[in-house]
């Protein structure tokens, strides 16, 4: 491709993208005004949502985990937002331009965006907030979310000052962000709750206590009204929100309910409108009795088992790793054990990731008998047979589901290769400590949900320096491919680089991909505006209660 077309392509993509975004925006507005006559709405617009566990914090820079993010999506708004079906739409940024080399983003902020106390949301707020999240003093779990922004890593390491971060307010409503490499998923990243702005005056006045009732000033569609720990969090509609005219709900309750069976009971008793999860054991009953309410959707997450590559028997024994992976019949696991529509995993990156097509094992479609035969030969070559059998340990964190899967995998290994497996269930923090120390662990369970809709969110996990690479996979060629992809402005070239990396990863067998996650919720039929989407993000501002 000529250098000229190299420059034009990303630009064309951006234009197309902006068109796409503005198009979907108009469409959703038409949809709302066309369908929501007052008669169609229930008089009381109060939504009650199950939310897993108690959120750690409502400070978007200091929390970790899904429960916190769910609420923060209602309390704050980043530069980019999402439509009900997960498409990127303008948030505080009304429009943006991207430089030809893909490194410089200029965001035009909407002038009607306000904080819940009436102050204007400005570019300076974003500068302050992004500096806050990467500042090592803040101690944020998600400081690395902003890794594509220039100098983030040096600031986290403490070698550069926070002012060196690649973000600058040109004026009140123009924000310039400089990246260290072209990052096609950068706009998607900006929907992540850790990139949300915080209200500087409140943070400076209240410190750690700013994210509490009475102190919290947000810029989302809702404001924090009540926080009764371990009981509920109540949000009320934010009259100062720029798009308040399209908000239908007046109140949103979030209930922390860790136990999914309890959540289901409260759902059945009519006390909750949307559940955070579904107890797997109740699946047959739910399919029969609450089929309409059941929302199962593909979700960008991979459930896998990892080998500890730093210790025998898996260190330097690729044949063994391959044999063990090949004899696992994923279809039996997903169809007979899980039974909730999960897809068997033969690749590292799940399907339906933006701008990507996953690479799969070539033995994916082989009949099981052929796979087993092939694996037996590999197993023998790896140095194991009936006279010298293999004994391995699988570790998983305590959970009925993980246990079932580990047992079935152990039985497949036993049946096909005569492997003796010892199962260890460990309490979560013990499990993590063992997995990360790489001392006793041989095979471990793991799962990964994408932070943003891009193959890189999965690819980077197996980089030799990545904090979640608990297999200890260390392939300089793989790392080099990732680095190259991060510098590549051309979307299709970048895709090919990431595909090459995925192929390399699969061929090295550091992990056993088992299945791709599904999000599971129960949603009352009278909830309007709810759409399944692959990020499993459901903003309350899109939802409403139909007359029922």
């Amino acid at each position: 491709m000529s250098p000229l077309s190299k420059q034009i392509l990303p630009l064309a993509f951006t234009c197309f993208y902006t068109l796409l975004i503005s198009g979907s925006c108009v469409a959703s507005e038409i949809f709302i005004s066309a369908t929501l006559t007052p008669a169609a709405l229930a008089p009381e617009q109060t939504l009650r949502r199950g939310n897993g566990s108690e959120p750690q914090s409502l400070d978007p820079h200091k929390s970790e985990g899904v429960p916190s993010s769910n609420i923060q999506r209602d309390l704050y708004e980043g530069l980019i937002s999402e439509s009900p079906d997960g498409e990127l739409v303008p948030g505080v940024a009304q429009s943006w331009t991207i430089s030809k080399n893909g490194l410089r983003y200029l965001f035009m902020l909407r002038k009607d965006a306000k904080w819940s106390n009436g102050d204007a949301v400005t570019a300076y707020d974003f500068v302050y907030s992004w500096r806050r999240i990467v500042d090592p003093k803040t101690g944020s779990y998600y400081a690395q979310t902003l890794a594509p922004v220039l100098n983030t890593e040096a600031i986290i390491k403490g070698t550069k000052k926070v002012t060196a971060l690649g973000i600058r307010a040109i004026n009140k409503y123009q924000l310039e962000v400089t990246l260290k490499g072209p990052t096609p998923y950068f706009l998607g990243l900006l929907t992540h709750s850790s990139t949300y702005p915080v209200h500087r005056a409140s943070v400076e006045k209240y410190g750690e206590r700013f994210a509490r009732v009475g102190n919290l000033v947000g810029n989302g569609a809702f404001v924090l009204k009540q926080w009764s720990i371990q009981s509920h969090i109540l949000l009320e509609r934010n009259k100062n929100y720029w798009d308040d005219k399209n908000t239908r709900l007046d109140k949103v309750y979030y209930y922390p309910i860790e136990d999914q069976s309890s959540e289901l009971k409260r759902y059945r008793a009519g006390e909750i409108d949307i559940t955070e999860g579904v107890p797997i054991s109740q699946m047959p009953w739910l399919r029969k009795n609450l089929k309409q309410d059941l929302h199962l959707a593909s979700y960008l997450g991979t459930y896998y088992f990892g080998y500890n590559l730093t210790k025998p028997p898996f260190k330097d024994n690729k044949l063994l790793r391959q044999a063990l992976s090949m004899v696992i019949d994923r279809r039996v696991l997903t169809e007979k054990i899980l039974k909730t529509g999960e897809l068997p995993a033969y690749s590292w990156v799940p399907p339906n990731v933006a701008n990507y097509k996953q690479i799969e094992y070539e033995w994916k479609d082989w009949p099981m008998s052929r796979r087993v035969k092939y694996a037996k030969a590999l197993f023998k070559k790896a140095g194991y047979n009936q006279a010298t059998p293999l004994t391995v340990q699988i570790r998983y964190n305590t959970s009925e589901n993980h246990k079932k899967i580990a047992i079935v995998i152990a039985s497949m290994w036993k049946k096909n290769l005569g492997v003796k497996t010892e199962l260890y269930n460990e309490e979560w923090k013990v499990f993590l400590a063992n997995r990360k120390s790489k001392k006793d662990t041989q095979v471990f369970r793991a799962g990964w949900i994408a932070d943003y809709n891009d193959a890189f969110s999965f690819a980077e996990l197996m980089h030799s320096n990545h904090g979640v690479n608990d297999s200890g996979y260390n392939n300089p060629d793989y790392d080099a491919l990732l680095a190259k992809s991060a510098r590549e402005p051309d979307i299709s070239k970048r895709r090919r680089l990431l595909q090459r990396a995925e192929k390399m990863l699969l061929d090295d067998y550091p992990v056993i991909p088992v299945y791709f996650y599904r999000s599971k919720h129960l949603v009352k039929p009278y909830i309007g505006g709810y759409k399944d989407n692959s990020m499993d993000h459901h903003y309350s501002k899109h939802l409403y209660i139909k007359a029922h």
Partner: protein
Amino acid sequence: MLEYFIRRLLGAIPTIFIIILVSFFLIRLAPGGPFDFDRSLAPEIQVNLNAKFHLDEPVYVQFGYYLKDILQGDFGPSFQYKNYTVTELIWQGFPVSVQLGLSAMVLALFIGCAAGMLAAYRQNSKFDYGVMTISMLGISIPNFVMAPLLILFFSITFSIFPAGGWNDGAFQNRILPIITLALPQVAYIARISRGSMIDVLRNPYIRTAFSKGLPTFYIVTRHALKPTLLPVISYLGPALAGIITGSVVVEQIYGIPGLGRYFVQGALNRDYTLVMGVVVFYGVFIIVLNLFVDLLYGWLDPQIRVQGQKT
């Protein structure tokens, strides 16, 4: 009396110190720390966080800091619930646990004592066998079975009470948790008071009262009630402490924001300060409660009171 009270309180100090010492080191012995997540923190940020909470120093130094803080009444910030201090969390959860526990206990006391005493009075009657059978069931059905059954019946099938939630302590939200907590206690108290009443009714002074022709109700309330209650009272102290501190399962099932949940969540999250705060708080609470029961016992039984005064 006051001297006795103060002496007992002072005697509790070493006990509390040992509780703090043991639990402080035990929780740190558990693998994993408060900042260990699936997603690793950047090493530099981890260092900062450790320094902020003194986790980078030797454990005995951390213990020193902790002792100093709690002597000033400061349980420190929660590692997990970052916007709150441990003291705030305890004061949010404890009243809820106490309200539930006390209500359940009062309910259990009335029903249990009445049923037990009536059963004793009509010993070996159908009523007696009925009460004993039901109480046996009450003791043997664990609350994690009882709670879902109650929810299924009262919330899902008949929609009388909510299936869970606290709703700022609304009356209807309290009913099912209180019943769940009270049922095993009713059973225990019925059995204890029945046994005790049978013993008391065999005493010569009761027989004398009957032979004088006094009405049964008068004899029971006037002469038999107090001595019958003695074993119930001695059971009450630990039972109340148990019901308030041990309502974890019930709080979890009904989604009640009590202190018990912090205990479990704190331990699972390695929220060191929260677990320590709850342990110390419970320790003091149980000691005070036992002391209170001893004083009550003295009031009910003149023999103990006299002995107490002599020593």
